[in-house]
């Protein structure tokens, strides 16, 4: 009777489990096997150790629960009097030691392979910022346009604050993903501009800290085209949970086409930055830039979160000398969370955000800053 009830219960439970799994695949129990040799080796290592632990657990807990069931006072047993055995102690010191050696050998092999970053075909620099990633593609020819861009969370504040339904890739989507070719040894050179971050993509089995003043290296050969997602893994301040990583792995030919397109884009922005901007255009674009880059700290309406994140309304830096606003945006405020945006944003975006903070939030200075002003300011060595 009891066993029948148990059978029904386990059937019901497993049905529920599978049904839910089919529904939204949110019952992932294990590590992904991934798309690189390294990630598969890591997965196999993980499973090997896991099964060793299960085996040891079955033996140890088995012995323990057998004793608990059989050697209880209520069964009228008399306690034994033995309390030591050097032989047994030596056996259960040596056996775990041998098991550990059996685990250490494959672990050493996989780790040694992971350290071989030589002969890479493409180098990409990854720079962590509070709270975004910059990707810079290393050029072979310094006369070419440099492809480099920032990658920022694309999930809207409304989704995070439960104003609208959350999308499928909630918190794991960015405005501009890192793009790399498949079947190519790509080396990542990692550093940080402020605090320590960690760049992690589970499908690649890569997690490495980006540390200010250091360059760490790691590498990947992705075997299948696709979109791979990850997150910053090292606590890096307020928005640590909101700096995801999105990598698009393209077939080499597609990658080449993408790369050429990016270089053309760099040339195009250079031309556009020479043109004049109207107040309306600057305010409209400034709002977009603000909502993507500034709103987390300075808050909607520019009210800020004093004293750490100052309000923009009536701020001396926003309403005083235009050079001060420009300096704050371009060079940041060293030693604070205010990043240097001089390289994160292009001159058009910079000009519009400066115009926006000087004319929005009740700051009616009436100035329109032009992209050419910003370019001149940056090139002036400020």
């Amino acid at each position, binding site marked *: 009777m009891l066993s029948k009830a148990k059978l029904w219960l386990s059937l019901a439970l497993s049905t529920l489990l599978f049904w839910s799994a089919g529904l939204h695949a949110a019952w992932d*129990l294990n590590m992904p096997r991934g798309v690189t040799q390294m990630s598969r080796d*890591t997965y196999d290592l993980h499973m090997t150790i896991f099964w060793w632990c299960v085996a040891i657990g079955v033996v140890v807990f088995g012995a323990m629960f057998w004793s608990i069931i059989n050697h209880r*006072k209520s069964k009228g047993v008399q306690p034994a009097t033995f309390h030591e055995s050097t032989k*047994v102690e030596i056996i259960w010191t040596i056996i775990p030691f041998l098991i550990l050696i059996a685990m250490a050998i494959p672990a050493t092999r996989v780790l040694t392979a992971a350290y071989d970053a030589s002969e890479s075909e493409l180098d990409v620099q990854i720079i962590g910022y509070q709270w975004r990633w910059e990707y810079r593609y290393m050029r072979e020819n310094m006369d070419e346009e440099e492809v480099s861009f920032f990658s920022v969370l694309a999930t809207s504040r409304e989704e995070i604050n439960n104003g609208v339904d959350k999308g499928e890739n909630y918190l794991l989507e960015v405005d501009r993903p890192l793009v790399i070719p498949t079947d190519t040894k790509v080396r990542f050179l990692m550093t940080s501009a402020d605090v320590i971050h960690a760049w992690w993509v*589970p499908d690649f089995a890569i997690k490495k800290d980006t540390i200010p003043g250091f360059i760490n*290296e790691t590498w990947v050969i992705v075997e299948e085209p696709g979109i791979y997602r990850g997150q910053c893994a090292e606590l890096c301040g307020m928005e*640590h*949970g909101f700096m995801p990583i999105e990598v698009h792995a393209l077939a080499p030919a597609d990658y080449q086409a993408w790369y050429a397109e990016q270089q053309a884009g760099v040339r195009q922005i250079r031309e556009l930055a020479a043109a004049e901007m109207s107040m309306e255009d600057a305010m409209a674009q400034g709002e977009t830039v603000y909502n993507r880059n500034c709103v987390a700290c300075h808050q909607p309406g520019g009210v800020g979160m004093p004293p750490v994140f100052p309000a923009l309304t009536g701020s001396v830096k926003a309403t005083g000398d235009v050079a001060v606003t420009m300096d704050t945006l371009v060079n940041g405020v060293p030693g604070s969370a205010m990043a240097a945006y001089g390289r994160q944003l292009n001159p058009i975006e910079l000009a519009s955000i400066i115009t926006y903070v000087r004319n929005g939030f009740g700051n009616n200075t009436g100035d329109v800053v032009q992209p050419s002003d910003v370019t001149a300011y940056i090139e002036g060595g400020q």
Partner: protein
Amino acid sequence: MSATHTISDAHDHHHGPAKGLTRWLYTTNHKDIGSLYLWFSFSMFLLGGAFALVIRAELFQPGLQFIEPAFFNQMTTMHGLIMVFGAVMPAFVGLANWLIPMMIGAPDMALPRMNNWSFWLLPFAFSIMVSTMFMEGGGPNFGWTFYAPLSTTYAPPSTTFFIFAVHVMGASSIMGSINVIATILNMRAPGMTFMKMPLFVWTWLITAYLLIAVMPVLAGVVTMMLFDIHFGTSFFNAAGGGDPVLFQHLFWFFGHPEVYIMILPAFGIVSAIIPTFARKRLFGYDSMVYATASIAFLSFIVWAHHMFTVGMPLAGQLFFMYATMLIAVPTGVKVFNWVATMFRGAMTFETPMLFAIAFVVLFTMGGFTGVMLAITPADFQYHDTYFVVAHFHYVLVPGAVFSIMAAAYYWLPKWTGYMYDETLGKLHFWLSFIGVNLLFFPQHFLGLAGMPRRIPDYALQFANFNWISSVGGFLFGFSQLILLFVVIKCIRGGKKATDQVWEGAQGLEWTIPSPAPYHTFETPPDPKLIHAQ
């Protein structure tokens, strides 16, 4: 026997506890100070637990519901700091105060005035630390590991107060450990040789040496932070020629022995409880002592396994991987010895035994994930995810905290003179056991599936297990109120406890009356009462 009782009663009359608040302020009595430590620890446990429930409430569903990310980071930081330095460590010091003199046949701790001071520093240290949350810019928000430069250049202004609080706590811990060492080395009763000491005394002796060795390193590292923040040095600032990774090396040189500081006394407690309720001597006493010493030694040479992703050279990674794996050997010996002690005993399952058995099973599960984390390439995947959160909560909650609860139930009749309510004790155990597993087991899955730790919001595929974990968290948290109720009820009365309390209990503390008189062993106990453990 009755004659000595009369004498000690008359003695109590003259030197018994003072009345009112001054008794607790001025006390130099190890039992009073032990109680102060335990009550302080319990109040910090509830406060740190409340912070944890704020975290679990926010993580109940994806999206931001209750708190802002900036406050969330303060919650994770304060939860960790309060639980480590305010709940677990003072609880063990409180048990040491109560039990070590009674276990070794000493009249009190060796340095009673310092004992008073080392306790009374703590409420001030924690008031300072908690008050930072009401300061401009908020309290510490950089995690309990406070990695530079997030905790220096980018830290809120209140960090200076945090540094001061850590210094005061460290001074308290160092004084507490000096006291433990001085007591154990100098005040053992005649006949209480080292290899006859109860394991709780042994594990605390070794723990005290660990504390003295590493607390100054923590003090040093926070002082370097202070200089970086206020005096223009660049210990951890790369722009000034410093090294942010140096911070991590120093922190974990403190931090890893700290982990064992929080678990070695737990081993001692469990090694006292299991033999009592199995009615059989502890198996392999000598190897338990040697295993404890080996774990303490290894704890100094494994620190960088917390830092496998900082980019150490291959040789460094391999050394720290091998050294870390080695810890499994002495830890395994301990677990095997506990199982061998139960084997062919005559067991009963009162509340202390239930907590002790749960300790062995669940701590061992934390040990398994510890071995997995030692494997460096696999650690690249586990590091800084909920897998790590699950691992260290398994060793700290059903590990260290369960052992403290087991100790409380086990010695409560000796402290109060009354038996606690067994039914409520068992209810507390089972709710805690179910709650803690619901809370932490699903976090293994979350980590493996890719959820980083210390995030206030998460992607949708992590929703289900977070939901389960939060339910478990609230169940576990509110179950602790039962413990409070049981303890108060037991202090107020109940069935009178006998001197020995438990049928199988061995050791000097069970030879004195229940409740233990205010002063015990003013004359050394009869050496014939001292048996090998």
